[in-house]
């Protein structure tokens, strides 16, 4: 019997988009501190898979469990451990960077100041600027900041490198490393797996 405690597990998972079956019989397990990279061409089902792993879409077949509990049966406090960032950052364009970050922090019950976080992300200069006036890269950074303040344990990131410059990408890689080191789990869909690859990474090829 294995002594490893798996946090995220997929069993015989099948994922469809519309009528098209994209993924069949996908089995994997992730323990704390482990990273999975989802790679594949456009349209292969990376986003659909992440949405199923987040519990935002139901699988066609099979099941996904978090801490051994099926996603649709998770208690609210367990569900709040799941963090997902898709193609959209979930930011309100009429709010400033600070207001967006504070909203997500309050929503997940983590209040406080976020000066250090904004400094790490080079957002200090634009912290009082409305998101509609930010560049695509700055929006991406703000989106990542809202993920960080949520205190989530599982990060499901869909193409997180998009629109990030070299500094932003290296910062993200560092954050991911720190998150995994702190016992977090991450599943990242990416076209640039080499930048995030580390020992023990699970590759899911679609």
């Amino acid at each position, binding site marked *: 019997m294995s002594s490893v405690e798996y946090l995220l597990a997929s069993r015989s998972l099948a994922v469809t988009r519309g009528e098209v079956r994209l993924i069949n019989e996908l089995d994997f397990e992730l323990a704390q501190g482990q990273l999975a990279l989802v790679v594949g061409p456009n349209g292969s089902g990376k986003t659909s898979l992440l949405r199923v792993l987040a519990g935002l879409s139901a699988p066609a077949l099979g099941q996904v469990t978090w801490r051994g509990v099926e996603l649709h049966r998770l208690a609210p406090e367990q569900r*709040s451990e799941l963090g997902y960032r898709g193609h959209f950052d979930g930011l309100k364009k009429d709010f400033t960077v600070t207001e967006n970050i504070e909203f997500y922090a309050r929503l997940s019950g983590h209040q406080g100041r976020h000066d250090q976080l904004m400094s790490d992300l080079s957002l200090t200069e634009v912290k009082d600027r409305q998101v509609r006036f930010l560049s695509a890269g700055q929006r991406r950074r703000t989106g990542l900041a809202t993920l960080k303040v949520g205190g989530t344990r599982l990060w499901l990131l869909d193409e997180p490198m998009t629109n990030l410059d070299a500094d932003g990408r290296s910062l993200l890689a560092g954050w991911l490393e720190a998150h995994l080191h702190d016992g977090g789990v991450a599943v990242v869909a990416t076209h640039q797996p080499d930048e995030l690859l580390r020992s023990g990474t699970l590759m899911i090829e679609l």
Partner: protein
Amino acid sequence: MTGFIVILERDLKLAFRRVSELANPLLFFVIVTSLFPLALSPDRLLLQAVGAGVLWVAALLSSLLALEGLFRADVEDGSMEQLMLSPVPLSIIVLAKITAHWIVSGVPLIALVPVVALSFELPAQALWVMAAALLLATPTLSVLVSIGAALTVSLKSGGSIIGLLVLPLCSPLLIFGARATDLAAQGEAVAGPLYLLGALAVFSVSLGPLAAAAALKVGLE
């Protein structure tokens, strides 16, 4: 409760940053109701006879206009996905959004009604009853439209379909609301229709957010 307040505050703050969007349904209400006395004969008795009905239908359509995009902005910018993953139950999120929208669109409508109703020469006692009836009817209206908005959230042109879905369900509100206003204009007791509107409000606010949350979940899969 904290989640409810956080989302309510956010939506109120957002609404006040887009005042023009708030004003559109109210302007629609004022313009539509002002056109009737111009198009009909200025006969006092005729205006009094049609006044309650016109005001109620205009209020209904204005609410539909205000609420059809209740969830769309959050879906389009990815906020809805984040809200759905938060520890706050989806039905509470829906209730908070409906409440915020009711405060910024329903309450001003109720405040406008006694003023607009003057152009129909409705007696003073009918104005206050109409405002009270709208106070009881608009929460039900908001909940019904939110269910329609949730069901059509993934459709690009959901507005017209919401009307088809929701307007037939609004007929009890129209019947009881217009009846209460008519009874008040004739100086008769208005408690009956107001109680019924109150009962509908309690029923819809208790169960409607659950239905809208289920519809939203299906619509976004």
